[in-house]
């Protein structure tokens, strides 16, 4: 490890680390363009670099992007990247109440704590954890996604029925495209553009950002959109905020890391689950969704420690769990490294250098991000006639940058209208996104499980890990019923 710090602290590698985390922050702030695309574009430039420096830089882009992702979620309700959708729920509400700076601060601190916890996990328990991750297969993934989907009971606003309907729409949209197992087209309406299904960015930005802007256009407003308090002190989180978030920091770090280790899950699921846990254990669950700092800290923490987790199967098994880690893997091969179970033994300098650089990078990100908060918060001072068109512009460019397809831009408009209609009719947007994120993987995991068991459903409950998670799912689903029954009893007694 000391050797690793010696490597990471060399001036050149420090510089690469800074370049990486800086770029990561920038692309995280910009919606659409994600770390995978950025790393792919920079790949040719790294061929002449020393592999250690290159991997330090590219990894910096990866975890740095998670820091930046929260910025537009909080300020504009535009998810900067997929994992920060959940941050919109409470982050944007905090901004609406004049606490944008505090929300950004909480996000940065949660990211720092969880990012560091993720690296500690990677350093200490990577090999045994990777072995454990292998015991997860389709039945376990299905159970995990069920648990995730059960979060809908926590995301529901006043009406559970509306939340469930929104979730079903999300599941339906997720089912569009090509059936993986039979190669049949589903709901493609004869269009080749829909064969790969609909991109997450289109749905999330449409429903959240455009829906919000269209909704706000109805109200005639003064020149200033959201309140921004004066003075640096008011732009930072208070001690009380940090105290409230103590558990959220821990929860986000641990949940994010563990889910990150599983190659088939992903950071969006991690952030949804940690948000759900936070709400479930909270003393004031009813305040979630109105702008509580824990609602920002938990998901932001989770999507940061997830990167540390995702490095575990990548570096110890050579198994990528996401688009970004897949391109890192491709990069390793292009540099002539052999990623796989023996990489730590073969390239200790690279591995420990990378781990050490991730500690340093997280500190850099905190130092880089905190001073930017007052600056970013000023964006909200812009008058609506500048801000709203700008959000439209950013959203369309963001979507177009993912696929270079005008078809997607039109789809974005469609989902924007859907988001607007849902707001008007008081349907919550988060369950739709939840259904959309989980639908595809959940269906796939169920069908894979049934293929493994030749159609026998008992495979889902005969495996201990999957049985436990399904049991928790059932508990989650019946808990609100108990709460309601209890409320009735109290009412009847009084």
């Amino acid at each position, binding site marked *: 490890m000391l050797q690793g710090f010696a490597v990471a602290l060399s001036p050149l590698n420090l510089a690469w680390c800074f370049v990486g985390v800086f770029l990561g922050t920038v692309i995280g702030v910009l919606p659409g363009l994600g770390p*995978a695309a950025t790393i*792919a574009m920079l790949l040719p430039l790294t*061929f002449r670099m020393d592999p250690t420096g290159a991997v330090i830089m590219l990894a910096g882009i990866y975890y740095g992007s998670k820091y930046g992702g929260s910025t537009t979620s909080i300020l504009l309700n535009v998810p900067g990247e997929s994992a920060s959708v959940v941050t919109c729920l409470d982050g944007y509400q905090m901004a609406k109440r004049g606490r944008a700076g505090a929300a950004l601060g909480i996000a940065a601190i949660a990211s720092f704590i969880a990012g560091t916890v993720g690296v500690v996990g990677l350093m200490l328990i990577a090999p045994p954890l990777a072995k454990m991750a292998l015991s997860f297969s389709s039945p376990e993934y299905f159970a995990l996604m069920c648990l995730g989907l059960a979060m809908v009971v926590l995301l529901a606003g006043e009406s559970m029925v509306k939340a469930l309907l929104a979730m079903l729409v999300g599941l339906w949209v997720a089912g569009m495209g090509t059936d993986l197992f039979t190669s049949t087209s589903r709901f*493609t309406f004869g269009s*080749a553009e829909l064969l790969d299904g609909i991109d997450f960015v289109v749905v999330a930005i449409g429903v959240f950002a455009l829906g919000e802007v269209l909704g706000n256009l109805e109200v005639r407003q003064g020149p200033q959109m959201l309140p921004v308090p004066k003075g640096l002190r008011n732009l930072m989180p208070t001690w009380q905020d940090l105290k409230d978030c103590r558990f959220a920091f821990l929860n986000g770090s641990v949940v994010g890391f563990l889910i990150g280790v599983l190659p088939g899950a992903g950071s969006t699921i991690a952030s949804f689950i940690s948000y759900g846990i936070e709400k479930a254990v909270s003393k004031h669950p009813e305040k979630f969704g109105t702008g509580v700092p824990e609602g920002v800290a938990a998901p932001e923490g989770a999507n940061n420690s997830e990167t540390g987790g995702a490095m575990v199967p990548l570096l110890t098994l*050579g198994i990528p*769990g996401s688009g970004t880690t897949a*391109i890192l893997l491709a990069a390793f091969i292009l540099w002539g490294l052999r990623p*796989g179970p023996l990489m730590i033994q073969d390239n200790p300098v690279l591995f420990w250098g990378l781990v050490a650089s991730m500690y340093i990078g997280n500190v850099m990100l905190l130092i880089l991000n905190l001073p930017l908060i007052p600056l970013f918060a000023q964006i909200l001072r812009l008058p609506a006639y500048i801000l709203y068109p700008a959000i439209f512009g950013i959203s369309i460019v963001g979507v177009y940058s993912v696929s270079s397809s005008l078809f997607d831009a039109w789809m974005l408009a469609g989902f924007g209208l859907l988001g607007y209609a849902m707001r008007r009719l008081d349907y919550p947007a988060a369950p739709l996104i939840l259904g959309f994120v989980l639908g595809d993987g959940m269906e796939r995991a169920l069908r894979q499980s049934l293929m493994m068991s030749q159609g026998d459903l008992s495979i889902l409950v005969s495996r201990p890990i999957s049985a436990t998670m399904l049991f928790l799912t059932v508990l989650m689903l019946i808990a609100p019923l108990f709460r309601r029954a209890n409320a009735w009893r109290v009412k009847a007694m009084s």
Partner: protein
Amino acid sequence: MKHRSAILVATLLLTTAALPLHAQGFKPAKPIEFVTHTGPGGGGDVFARGIAAAMEKEGLMPVRMQVVNKTGGGGLTAMAYLAEKQGETHTIAVFTGIWFTNPIMRKEAKFTMSDLTPVVRLVLEPAVIAVKNDAPFKSLKDFIDAAKQNPGQLKQSAGSLGSRDWVVRQLLMKNTGANWAYISFPGGGERIAALLGGHVNMMVIEPQEAGEHIRAGNMRVIAQVADKRLPAFPDVPTIQEAGFNVPNVPQVRGIVAPPGVPADVVAYWEDLFARFIKTASWQKYLADNMFENGYMRSAELRAFGETFSETTRNILKEGGVAVAR
């Protein structure tokens, strides 16, 4: 002095006059748009960026190659994009086997490979058949025998229907009468994880990917999907050597251009890639990934494409997949 410069000018004139004869006049004048159907990090994307980087390093082209990702429809979007660029001389694309198979299976496809201009075939990617190291199967025959004894019980983790993994399975099942389950996973990582976790029994894997798992003692290779044994696996028989009379199914990659591209442009690319595949960068790329050089010029590639499509169509039909055209 004057005399000398006159000779120099004459030589220059001669060489410039001779060049068009050789390259038929075409030379790219602006950056080349290099289309791939996968998103950043996908197989086609990494391949395209590998070529673009090596071209730049070797200084073979006067202009840059700009990789453009046209994702969607398993290649169909990129094919349609290319097809609409009728006669465009500064756009080329990377194709893979899916560009042939997908239009056969999809009625949504508006174009097939025969609508585009074939340029060159570049690589053939062999594969190996791997099992977990503690599996009882020491050879492909062991696996097939076990599959015959327990029909439908053994499992293969793989990609989508119509992919190379699937074709290999169809051919082996047809040839032997054995039958095993085919479980699709969208990501290569998930397929390997399912095998290493003992949730499935076998997979068709790229040799480079398998290499490290074998070295670590997690995986064993029981056969190769290649014409001849790969240098990295001298002791493992090919499927044919193992006694199974099935055709070899390589994953193929190469370059296509939009429809109606003039012959001199095609000739330019043919010559450029003929020089390109000899460069040290490319040779190293092939060796690192254990790819085979599969260079073929435009006319041969067209014929190859027709046979390839026909074979695939038959395999798909026999496998019970609806064929659209």
